[in-house]
Every structure is written in C-alpha cells, then in structure tokens.
C-alpha cells in the first residue's frame, strides 16, 4: 500500500503512493492533489474532508460489482474508508478532487472546468472582546462595502457578529457572495479582516488577536464597568484609602457614594464629579471616549473632578484613582487647600491595582466556524445516514474538524462549531459556489460502525492498516495558540 515517503533534500518528500513518485514540497500536494507534504510527513488529503455536498462521490462506496456475472477481480475499492474514518489527517493547501466534474446539472451532460470544488452552507460567529460600541444589534456588517452578516446580541464584555451563511454567500449579488466567501475564509484561516458596521465602527478582526476598533487596538477586557469595579473591590479598599474613583467611559464609580461604600459605612469625602450622575456613586459621561484612562480621552484623571466640598473634605484625605483595567492608576492626598496632590502609592493599594489588572483578560477576537454536515456527507459514511447523526449525538462517534474538537449542536443534522485557531494553518479552502471547504472527520469504533449500518465490507482493510502511517492523529494545539 502507498504508505511511506522517502525523505529527500530540502524537506521535499517523495511520495510513493503511485508510480508518478512526485517530489512534494512542504505545504504542497502531489500531482494527484490526494497526497500532500504536511511538515515533512506524507498525508492523505482527500475524501473525509468535505462539508455538506461532499459527495456525489458517495458513490465511491458503492461496489462496482453490481451483478453476479461481473468479473470482480479487475475492480477494486481500496481503502476509501481508511481516511474517511479515523484518519484524523488534514491537509495543507487543500485542493479538492474533481467534484464539480461529477456533479450533475440539469440539461448538461458533463462539465469542463479547470479545477474542482465542494459546496457548503456555513458561516462564522465572531466574539469581539470590547465594550466599545461597534454598532446597533442587527446592523449590517460589511467587508469591502458588501453585506456579509450582522451584529447579533452582545455577550459579557463582548460584541458578537454573525457572518456568512447561505444568504450572503449565494443569495445576493455575485460580488456579495465572493466578498463574503473571502472574508469567511480569511477569518477561518486566522487572517485579519476589516469590517465596517452600518451606523457603527470599523473593526479589524483576526482570530486570536485583539480587535482594532476604529484604528485603536483593544488590549484588555475591563474587569467590569467603573461601578462594578467599585462593587468588586470595595472591601479590599476599605480602611486603606478614603476615596476611590474608578474612571470609565461608560460608568465611572465613586466609592464613598456607591452602594458598596455605603454598606461598608465609608464616610462622605466631599468629592465632586463632573459628568451626569446616574444613581449614587455612578456617573455617566465624565469625559469623551478615547484611548486614555478607562476608555476616556483624559490623561489627567483629576480633570473629571470638581473642587472638593470644604464642608466635608479635610486636608490629608487620601484618594485612589484607577481605570477599569488597572492600566492607569494614581494616588493623591488633599493638601491644606483641599487640592489633590499626587503621592507615591502605598504598597497595599498598588496590590489592589494589580489585582484589577490580573482580573482583566486580554481582549481577543475569537472566531468559531459553524457548518452543517448534510445528508450526502452522512450517506458517504453509512447506508443509513440518520444513524450516524444518532451515533454522534450518543457520543459514539467523535466529530473533529482538522483534528480539532468541535461542539455539535443538539437537534437535527450534524451542525458543529469549531474554534478556528485550533485547526492547522490554511485548513479552510474555498470553491466557486462560493462556499467554504472545511475539514471534518468522523471517528468511531469498528463495532459501533457496524452497528450503525456502515459499509462494513470496506472496513476490512482498516485492520490491516493498523500500523499504517496513513492513520495518524493530528497533534492538537492548545486553544488560542497561533502559528
């Protein structure tokens, strides 16, 4: 069997899968597009790879020996299942084998085409860690001016986009479909994509990297709004400082006025905030949004304060001012004229600021590819497609995408989501439909496979291939690791 490759110079490998004996460079495939050099290893790249419309090639699994008088000796179906089941291989620079050529189109007997592809329904869900306003819910998200999706309901500390799907891919203009496909593929392959939101911001999204909103890279997710930060840290500040102001472009919090401060019997300090008071200790619009303290434009935090009330304030009072990410912080004492004077920060307050920082996770864009494995793909695996679905639901069959774990959505069909940063580089391809090509593998035990009506006649070669290098597990990179 074609199982080995001879190492050659320059990381090229020589494939001996067929007599052409291609030299294959890393990241490239041989003349057949079926075997490829993946980091110096020969991997098989074909049939288990395809979403949705895998296979008019499901027919590969139907024996050629249709009748009893056929001379079965000249026909062979070697190991089509070897990669379809449990190979776990994936491919560099995947180019699908001739599917269009075998697709049937009404009124056309055959198709001539330079290259071939696969068709699918799919999209990506994008989570953007930022509290900045990206645009209203349901607003259209555009790439190169074309609508490719929309803003969906926000999540904690994050704005969510839903992109792609069959309507943008094939329901609109040619350009819309192409641009959508390009954007989906780039996002899925962890490349940066600039998106503009109707009535909102321009954001550069790249899986595993911080979002760039209107030209400014987000660094950390804030621990909470200014008010929430007061709530979380009030106890840690109690007794160590008289007043704390958490500067935030959304809601700035003031410890002594805040409910959390009141509960700790923290006395009034005579502080005067600029901005619009929402509820006690919570202020809106203390400054214009910007890239300074707490997402505001200010560089001097004192500019959000008015003069202290001389009836309440007294010289020597202490005050911590900190941003919601802890990236900015300053410590003050009131002088005889009740003016705050910056002083070196006491160690225990410094620790509280570090604690805020520690609780701010890095702001990231995360991209989940979502696609559905339809009837034809399942039919390629078993005589009775719905049993594959059931075995997936019953966790007998493990679904992976390019070797990465997936979440299979409950309900009908095999609709899955996968974190694109966990797939090998360049795992996603695209085809003219336009649509994405994504890897998907089903892995299950032979006994379970037989039970679900698999084409068991073709499984026999599997056992003889136990030591075959074609069967290998893709190493799984830790979540979020980038290449």
């Amino acid at each position, binding site marked *: 069997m074609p199982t080995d490759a001879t190492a050659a110079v320059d990381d090229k490998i020589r494939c001996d899968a067929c007599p*052409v004996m291609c030299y294959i460079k890393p990241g490239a495939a041989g003349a057949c597009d079926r075997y490829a050099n993946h980091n110096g290893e020969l991997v098989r790249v074909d049939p288990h790879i395809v979403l949705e419309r895998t296979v008019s090639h499901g027919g590969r699994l139907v024996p050629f020996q249709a009748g009893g008088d056929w001379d079965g000796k000249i026909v062979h179906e070697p190991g089509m299942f070897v990669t379809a089941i449990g190979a776990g291989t994936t491919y560099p620079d995947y180019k699908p084998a001739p599917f269009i050529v075998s697709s049937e189109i009404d009124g056309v007997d*055959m198709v001539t085409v330079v290259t071939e592809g696969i068709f699918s329904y799919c999209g990506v869900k994008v989570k953007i860690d930022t509290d900045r306003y990206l645009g209203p819910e349901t607003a259209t998200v555009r790439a190169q001016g074309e609508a490719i999706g929309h803003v969906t309901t926000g999540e904690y500390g994050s704005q969510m986009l839903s992109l792609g799907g069959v309507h943008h891919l094939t329901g609109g203009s040619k350009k819309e479909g192409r641009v959508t496909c390009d954007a989906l593929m780039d996002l899925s392959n962890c490349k940066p994509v600039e998106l503009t939101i109707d009535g909102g911001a321009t954001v550069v999204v790249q899986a595993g990297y911080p979002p760039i909103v209107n030209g400014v890279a987000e660094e950390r997710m804030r621990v909470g709004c200014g008010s929430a930060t007061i709530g979380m840290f009030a106890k840690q500040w109690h007794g160590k400082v008289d007043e704390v102001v958490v500067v935030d472009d959304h809601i700035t919090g003031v410890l002594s006025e805040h409910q959390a401060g009141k509960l700790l019997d923290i006395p009034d300090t005579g502080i005067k905030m600029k901005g619009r008071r929402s509820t006690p200790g919570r202020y809106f619009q203390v400054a214009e949004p910007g890239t300074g303290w707490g997402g505001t434009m200010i560089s001097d935090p004192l500019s959000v304060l008015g003069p202290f009330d001389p009836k309440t304030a007294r010289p020597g009072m202490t005050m911590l001012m900190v941003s919601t990410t802890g990236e900015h912080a300053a410590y003050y004492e009131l002088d005889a004229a009740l003016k705050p004077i910056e002083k070196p920060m006491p160690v225990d307050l410094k620790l509280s600021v570090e604690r805020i920082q520690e609780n701010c996770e890095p702001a990231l864009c995360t991209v989940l590819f979502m696609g559905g494995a339809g009837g034809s793909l399942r039919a390629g695996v078993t005589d009775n497609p719905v049993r594959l679905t059931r075995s997936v639901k019953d966790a007998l069959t493990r679904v992976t995408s390019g070797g990465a774990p997936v979440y299979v959505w409950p309900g009908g069909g095999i609709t899955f989501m996968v974190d694109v940063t966990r797939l090998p580089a360049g795992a996603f391809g695209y085809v*003219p439909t336009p649509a994405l090509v994504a890897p998907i593998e089903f892995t299950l035990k032979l006994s379970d496979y037989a039970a679900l009506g698999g084409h068991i006649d073709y499984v026999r070669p599997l056992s003889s291939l136990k030591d075959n290098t074609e069967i290998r597990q893709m190493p799984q990179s830790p979540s979020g690791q980038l290449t």
Partner: protein
Amino acid sequence: MKRVPQIGWLADGRRLHLQDGPIDLIVEVHGSETNRRAAYDAAARRFTGLLDELCDELPLLRRAADPARCELQGAVARRMDAAVAPFALDHFITPMAAVAGAVAEEILGAMLDAARLERSYVNNGGDIALHLGHGEHFTVGLMDRPDRPGLMRTIIVDADDPTRGVATSGRHGRSFSFGIADAVTVLARTASQADAAATIIANAVDLPGHPAIVRCPAHDLQPDSDLGARLVTRDVGELTGHEIEDALESGAACARNLLTAGLIDGAVLRLQGETVLVSARAIDALRSGTPVYRAAMESAMHV
C-alpha cells in the same frame, strides 16, 4: 500489496469513476445493457496498469517535445506526443500537456473497441473524449472562472460536428500555466489535441511584464515539474478593461491561427469575467447553447 486503481460507481449508479494516482475519470456510456457492461469492463481493464505504462516513460514525457521525431513507446505516450508535436517548433511544450486528454481518449477507444455504443464520454477532470452516434449531441457546460460563481455557458457538440474532444486549461487548474487566462476551453477532433491546444492558447493569454501578475519558477512549486525553472502564473491582480481585452486578444490571435491550421474547431477564452469566442462553424452551436444561470446551477448543486 500491489497498488490498484480505484474503480466504482458514482452515487447515481450510472457513471463509472476510475481513479489512479493523479488520473481521475468519470465515464458514462449509452447502449444496450450488454454493450454497456462490455464497455465498462473494457474501461476497467484498460485503466488498470495504464498509469504504470505512462510512468515507465515519465522522464521522456517531461522533456520538451521534438517536432521531428518521437522516441516514446506506449500508445498513450505516443498520442500525447502527437498532440503536442504541431506546437513544438514554436513553443516549449512537453507531451505532459496532453496527458489528460490522451488518457480520456485511450479509455474511450478501449470501450468502443469492445462494444457498440451510443453517446458516450470519458471526462478526465474536465478534459473530455466524446463519442456520438448518428443524430446525437452532447451539451457541455463551461464553468466560468472556477473560483467565482456565475454564468455557465454551454456548448452543444453535435454528431455532425468534427469535434470529439473538449479540454480546458487555465491558471487555476492543477497544471501550471504561463498565461493568465482563467479558463480556455477548446473543441478539437480529439481530446488530446484539445488538451494540447488549450494549454498553448491559455499560455498566450498574457500581459508580459504586467506588475499585477505574480509569477514564480514552476520547480519552486513542484520540484519535478516538467516546466522546470520557467515562470508560471501564481496570481493575477485586478486588471483594467483594456488590459483584459489585450490579454484575451493575444490568446484569441493564437486560437485563430490554430483554427486556420485545422488544429482546433473552436475555443472559448475567459479572463476576469470577460469571454471571447474563436470559432468557425462551431459558433452556431455556441450561440444555441442555453446559458444556465447561477441560480439554476446552485439548485442543481445543492440537492
């Protein structure tokens, strides 16, 4: 275990799929049950070992063809050489430029030797050998740029036409191109001739020295490419309408010469959404073909 080709039915149970190494054929024949069976049997027999025959002479097949003589032994290899020989004086071309068409032709020939068939074809990844009985015709679909959706053009090949081969070449395929055409589809007497001519015409669709065209040595991409260090097209940026016209015209001029020389029956050249037809009599057939629009195509693809 000896390597064996993969031979099986497609899901429809009608069309046979033959695959071995880089060769991938879809075969369909019409005729009586006995004849169909005999034909598919013959196809399977002829296909087994065919790749090995070719590979035995691979070094020679990868060398530039000599217009004056042919040292190749195998029937398919010699057919490849014969198909590219008419171009070898003026162009760098190796017999490999006609491999797909020549294989398709060989399998079709084996079937016709063994059985009486009505309309039948062997489609080798888009390079197609046709057989048409009296009064029959085929409708061949042309993909627009394969990486974009869009209008599909169709060509009707009638039994009265001389055409028995259709092939497509371009920069998006598995093989490399010196040119920038998205696709050049050629109708010719045989599949191997169509294959060779499509390669030559696709190479001619070009804008030498244009900054938006990225080229690199073929052997950087495929170490054992028959094109060696010659620059092949990797990417083509956005071109202006005039540039597209110029590039297509350069290919069309080449196609007209081949038409005049009797080497092709017609050609359809496509670049960035623009299409040029070069054809003498086949032009009527081209026009009578009903365009299949994207919507129809999608629904056909998504069932």
